[in-house]
Each structure stands twice: as structure tokens, then as C-alpha cells.
């Protein structure tokens, strides 16, 4: 599979390609604008939306600020209900645990519910290498898997594909994986959904092992919650004999009652529905109903490092609704792949550099993949101040400083490639704390203004490649003020 992000170019370079891809631009524009308007309507139906949002934020903060206590409580309640809890410090360990659990069943195939956590750790690829086939069953994940593609959206990983492209992928690839697409498959969404139904049905019915993530885990009861639409989740969660759920440690909510907030805010934020078609809640195992064996793999993989950052930890409040992607003007134009992570968009831009660190070129560039317009913060149902975290991570990139990596305190060096900028910023600060120096600069610019080109050479082309420069005026304001006392002397 080509589903890897290793060696991604930095965001600006990847985005440049995307901006020029007119099909991609059209697909993304259509999809994000459709969902934007719908979300706004669904949210407007609830006149206590802001109070729900604040409650959601507080519940998640409560969890995060006492995560050790809630993890232990969750472990106890899941165990008491018949589940087995495993702890995975990183992706390798989680993959190893899952692979061993699958092998212990003697099975060589598993069905999967869409799960960001297993995408993050590249579970499918790891299982495949050990002879275990993992079948994605969410429609969009299926499109990505069949198309040997990468996900580009949290909720709708195949958002970059339009109906015609999906039809072509189904027609070409389904036969390789199982039941082929029906003859003469059209590109109407209903027909495409039907093709997926037929293709996956045999896999569901024979599956012995299901793998999922979870949207929420309730510490006090040990209940796991999966929110979905198609019924593929229910298939994976109830038909197999063994269920393995890989869940990030931040997905806990303390109490059963806490769900009343998120079950209102999540569906409206993600698919713009009052309620998604199916939500499954299970607590351990139930005699005679559903899987006999339930394993919960609690995943760290950079989450505790993120938790150690007082500003950045709010990113762990995320409930993966993807509202921030749908409103983001940068995401709309750059597409999800440019972010070089399973977490694209604004939330990805603050999550990936924290989970993975800022050492790679792509991760160091992500905090800058935003105009700081704030639309993401405005729609976030748990009020993550994404612009605040972006700026904070920019600081980490240019200044370096203390951070935690794999549980250890490290001192980060300022990122390479920012030396010239740093010098310029320092010089600007020097001038801008000295009014006299500013004035000298302004007068020089005014005096030489006839010599200024409207376009710039070298790095200045970043501006003037697409935009004209404003002309420099004959005199700066402060000279006019000094000359005329603000026009009070009648002078112009």
C-alpha cells in the first residue's frame, strides 16, 4: 500500500501541487461547502449550543487534568465487565499487541471499523506484513483502501474523490479484494453505497475478529462508544467472536452523564445531523450477545508528551468531529494529503507536530499551515483554541526550548531554516521599539519610492508572484502629523 507519509515534503510544497489540481479543488470545495451550511443549520437548532460547548470543554479538561486517575478507573471497570485491558506506549507496541491477539484466534483476516487510532499507528500495514488481511468497512475507508490511496479527511477519508472517481475505483479494484462491483455500476451515490454493501457483506458475515477504535470510553462504567452511520460499525462490533478496540488514552470521559453533552455536539459538528444513524455502546462482554472476547488497547503514542505541554494539551480535547477541517480555507485549498498525517486540517496542524514532534520538515511546517483566521476555533465543539496552539508551536519551531518526547524532557534547538527570519525579526524589533529608527526607515522608503518595483526578485517573489505591492506614499503619516498637527493648522 502506498498509504505512508514518510518523507513528506513540507506543507507549502505539497499544498502548491494541490492548489494547481483543479479536480481536487473542485471536489473539496463542493464537499466542504455542502457540509458547512448544513452544520451551521444543525447547530443553530440548539439555543444552548455555547453552553454545551463549554461543558464539553470542561469535561475533557477534567479528564485530561486527572488522566491517571481516570485511566485506572477505566481499567478497573472494563476488567470487571469482562474485558481485557492492554497498555501500549507507542505504535509498535500497540501493533504487536493487536497482531498477537489476532494470531491467538488463528484467524488471518479481520474486519475494521473506521478508526483514527489504528490509522495513526499504521496497523493495517503491520498486520499485512504478518499475513493478516485487514478489511476496512467504512465506505470512505474502503474507497481509500481499494484505491491504494491515503486518507485526506478525518470523517470522510475519501473526500478528495468525487463520485466518478469512486465508481472507477470500485469497478477496477473490488474484484481483487472479493466480490467484484456490479456490471454497469453508475456513479450515483446510492448505487455506489449498494456496491459497497454487496462487496463487504460476505466479509462481515464470516468475520471472526473485529477491530475498532472508540469515540468515548466512560471511566465510571467501562462503557465504550462508537458513533457511526452505515452499520459497518455494528457489524464489526457485534458479529465477530473477538473484538479488539485500540483507543487513545485521551478518549475517556469521567461519567455516564458526560455522554449527554457529546452525543449532542458530535453528530451536529461532524455530519451535521441531529443524531447519526447508529451509536453502539458496550460494557465489557455480554453473555450470548456479541463478541465473547473483548480487548481494549490503550494507546499513548505521543499523547502523554502532548499532555505535558500546558498550552498544547488542549489539542487532546479533540473528539475528531472534523468541523475544523470543513470550515478551514487552507484545508479547502491544500487538501488533506498536504498535511502529511492521518490528522489533516487545523486539528492535524496542532496534533501531528505534538504527537510526532517537530523534528521532520513536514511537522515543522504544519504550525504555519494557517492564516490564523480562527474559523476552526469558532466551530470546535470542545473549544480548542487552535490558533493559540498554532502560534505556540511556531514558537517551539523558531525558538526551540523544553519539550517532552517519549516521556523524557528534551531541550529542542531552534529549527534550521529560520535563521534569516530570526535575524530579520530581531532587527525589526530593534527598529520598532525605537520611533526614531522607524521614522528614518519610513523616510528612506518614501524618498526612494519612485525606484521601487511593483514586483520583487528573490524571496520577495513569494508576495509579488501573485500580488502587486502597494505604492509607498510620498510621506509617512507621522511626517504629515508633525507638519500639520493633524490638519489642525489648516494645512493639508
Amino acid at each position, binding site marked *: 500500500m502506498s498509504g505512508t507519509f514518510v518523507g513528506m515534503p513540507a506543507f507549502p510544497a505539497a499544498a502548491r501541487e494541490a492548489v494547481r489540481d483543479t479536480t481536487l479543488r473542485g471536489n473539496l470545495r463542493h464537499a466542504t461547502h455542502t457540509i458547512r451550511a448544513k452544520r451551521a443549520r444543525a447547530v443553530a437548532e440548539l439555543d444552548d449550543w455555547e453552553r454545551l460547548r463549554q461543558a464539553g470543554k470542561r469535561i475533557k479538561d477534567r479528564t485530561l487534568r486527572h488522566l491517571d486517575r481516570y485511566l485506572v478507573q477505566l481499567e478497573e471497570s472494563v476488567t470487571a465487565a469482562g474485558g481485557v485491558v492492554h497498555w501500549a506506549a507507542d505504535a509498535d507496541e500497540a501493533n504487536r499487541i493487536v497482531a498477537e491477539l489476532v494470531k491467538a484466534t488463528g484467524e488471518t483476516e479481520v474486519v475494521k471499523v473506521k478508526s483514527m487510532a489504528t490509522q495513526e499507528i499504521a496497523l493495517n500495514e503491520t498486520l499485512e506484513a504478518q499475513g493478516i488481511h485487514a478489511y476496512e468497512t467504512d465506505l470512505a475507508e474502503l474507497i481509500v483502501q481499494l484505491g491504494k490511496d491515503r486518507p485526506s479527511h478525518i470523517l470522510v477519508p475519501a473526500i478528495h474523490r468525487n463520485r466518478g472517481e469512486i465508481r472507477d475505483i470500485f469497478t477496477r479494484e473490488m474484484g481483487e479484494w472479493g466480490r467484484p462491483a456490479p456490471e454497469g455500476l453508475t456513479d450515483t451515490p446510492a448505487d455506489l453505497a449498494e456496491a459497497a454493501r454487496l462487496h463487504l457483506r460476505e466479509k462481515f458475515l464470516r468475520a471472526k475478529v473485529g477491530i475498532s477504535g472508540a469515540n468515548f470510553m466512560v471511566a465510571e462504567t467501562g462503557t465504550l462508544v462508537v458513533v457511526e452511520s452505515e452499520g459497518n460499525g455494528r457489524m464489526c462490533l457485534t458479529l465477530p467472536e473477538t473484538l479488539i478496540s485500540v483507543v487513545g488514552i485521551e478518549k475517556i470521559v469521567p461519567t455516564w452523564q458526560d455522554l449527554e453533552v457529546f452525543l449532542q455536539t458530535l453528530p451536529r459538528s461532524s455530519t451535521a445531523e441531529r443524531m447519526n444513524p447508529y451509536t453502539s455502546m458496550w460494557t465489557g462482554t455480554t453473555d450470548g450477545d456479541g463478541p465473547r472476547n473483548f480487548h481494549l488497547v490503550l494507546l499513548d503514542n505521543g499523547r502523554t508528551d502532548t499532555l505535558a505541554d500546558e498550552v498544547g494539551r488542549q489539542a487532546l480535547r479533540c473528539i475528531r468531529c472534523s468541523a475544523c477541517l470543513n470550515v478551514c480555507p487552507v484545508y479547502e485549498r491544500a487538501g488533506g494529503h498536504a498535511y502529511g498525517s492521518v490528522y489533516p486540517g487545523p486539528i492535524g496542524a496542532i496534533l501531528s507536530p505534538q504527537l510526532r514532534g517537530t523534528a521532520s520538515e513536514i511537522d515543522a511546517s504544519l504550525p504555519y499551515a494557517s492564516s490564523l483566521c*480562527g474559523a476552526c476555533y469558532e466551530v470546535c465543539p470542545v473549544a480548542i483554541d487552535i490558533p493559540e496552539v498554532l502560534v505556540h508551536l511556531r514558537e517551539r519551531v523558531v525558538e526551540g526550548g523544553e519539550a517532552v518526547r517519549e516521556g523524557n524532557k528534551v531541550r529542542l534547538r531552534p529549527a534550521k531554516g529560520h535563521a534569516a527570519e530570526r535575524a530579520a525579526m530581531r532587527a*525589526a524589533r530593534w527598529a520598532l521599539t525605537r520611533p526614531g529608527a522607524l521614522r528614518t526607515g519610513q523616510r528612506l522608503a518614501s524618498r526612494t519610492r519612485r525606484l521601487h518595483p511593483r514586483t520583487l526578485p528573490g524571496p520577495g517573489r513569494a508576495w509579488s508572484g501573485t500580488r502587486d505591492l502597494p505604492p509607498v506614499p510620498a510621506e509617512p503619516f507621522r511626517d504629515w502629523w508633525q507638519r500639520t498637527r493633524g490638519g489642525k493648522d489648516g494645512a493639508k
Partner: protein
Amino acid sequence: MRVALFLTCVNDTLYPDTGRAVVKLLTRLGVDVDFPEAQTCCGQAHYNTGYRHEAEPMARHFADVFREYDAVVTPSGSCGAMVRELYPRMGERARSEGRGDGLATVLAPVVPKTYELTEFLVDVLEVTDVGAYYPHRVTYHPTCHGLRSLGLGERPLRLLRAVKGLELVELPGAEECCGFGGTFALKNADVSAAMGTDKVRNAESTGAEVLCAADNSCLMHIGGTMTRLRTGMRPVHIAEILASTEEDPSV
């Protein structure tokens, strides 16, 4: 009331007409506005690019220059937001870095008394009809920091609707960012330009002659895109529209 104009470094250097318009407008409304000449820059570009520590002396300088005034008026949504939203945050961060309350204490006094121009007009002076005349078809772009950080809401529109001769037309996708974003315009020039182009195309579709906003930084980007795309539209700061009268029209 002692009122100071914080023009911002960008306006001072590149858009003196906006500064003159603010002075003219406020003077007409009976406000004796001062321009403290020691003013420079709020530090926003530094802060937002990740140079918070470089921005700190600039913020201190700002607080020092404007400490004595009762109100500070700025014709820039983003610089206003820098002072109001981010200065308190800078103080908090310094505190959490173990540097004490010094910065927070220095910055605190200027925070509540700093107003973006349209806020000052509507909330402090309590005027919406400023006696302006501007016989043009105009569309209004709410800039992001004015819209989301300061929550300017309807204020600019109420002011524009009261302008004689002005035909206000709605901008499709108004609340979408124009793509400027400070150093974003340079660091992600392609995405920035694509956003700017969409903004300009939307503006063009209104048939307006003028796209108006309350922030010249965004207008520099939008205007530069307009001339490059040869649209014939003009970017104009809202202050210049509100300052224009029948006796002394601005173009």
C-alpha cells in the same frame, strides 16, 4: 476624554491616507485625537510568527506610549485584537514561565481601553450616522480578527448603511479569510494567493466598485490581487469612506 490614535506601523508607513481619514472623522465628531509620536508597532507579526519573546518589548513600548490616555483607537482589527486578546495572554505566559507578574501588570492598563475604530464609534461615541457621503457601490469584507477575535459584528455594516449615497452590496462568502494572515502570505504563498483570488472573484461578482474593510493589511493583499487580476475594483479602508463628506469627498 484623552483619545490617542494608534495608527499601526503598516498604516503609518504605507497608508497615511487612512490615518488622515481617522483624524478627520474623529475631529468632525468632536474628538480631540492625539497621535503620540513615540508609537511604533504592536508586535503582532512577531507574536504570530512565533517570536513572542521579541514581541514583548514592543508590547511594553506600546503600553508605555499609551498609558496616559483614556482611549486608544486603531483602524486595524488585527492590531486591536493583538492588544485586547493577546497582550493578556503574553502576560499569562510570562507568569507561567516563572517570570512573575511584571509583564502582565505593565500591559493590563491598555487592554480594556484599546478600541478598533468602528467599536469606538458605535460603542463609545454611540454614533452610527457619522454624516458621511460616499456615492459608490460598496461591498464589505469582515476581516478575521475583527470578526472573530474582537467580535465587531454588525458595527461596520451599521456605519456603512448610514452613509449617504453608498449602496452596500453583500459579499458572497464574506466570512471566509482573504488569505493574508501576516507571514502566512509569504510562507504559504500559493494557498494564500488561491484564497485571495477566490475573495476577489466573490467581490467582483457583486458588481461593486469598492471593497471595503477595517484593516489595511488584508486590503493590501486583496488590493494587490485585484490589480494583478485587472479587476478594476478598488480596496478602500472603511475610515476613508466614513471620513468622506459632500463638502470634502474622498475618492
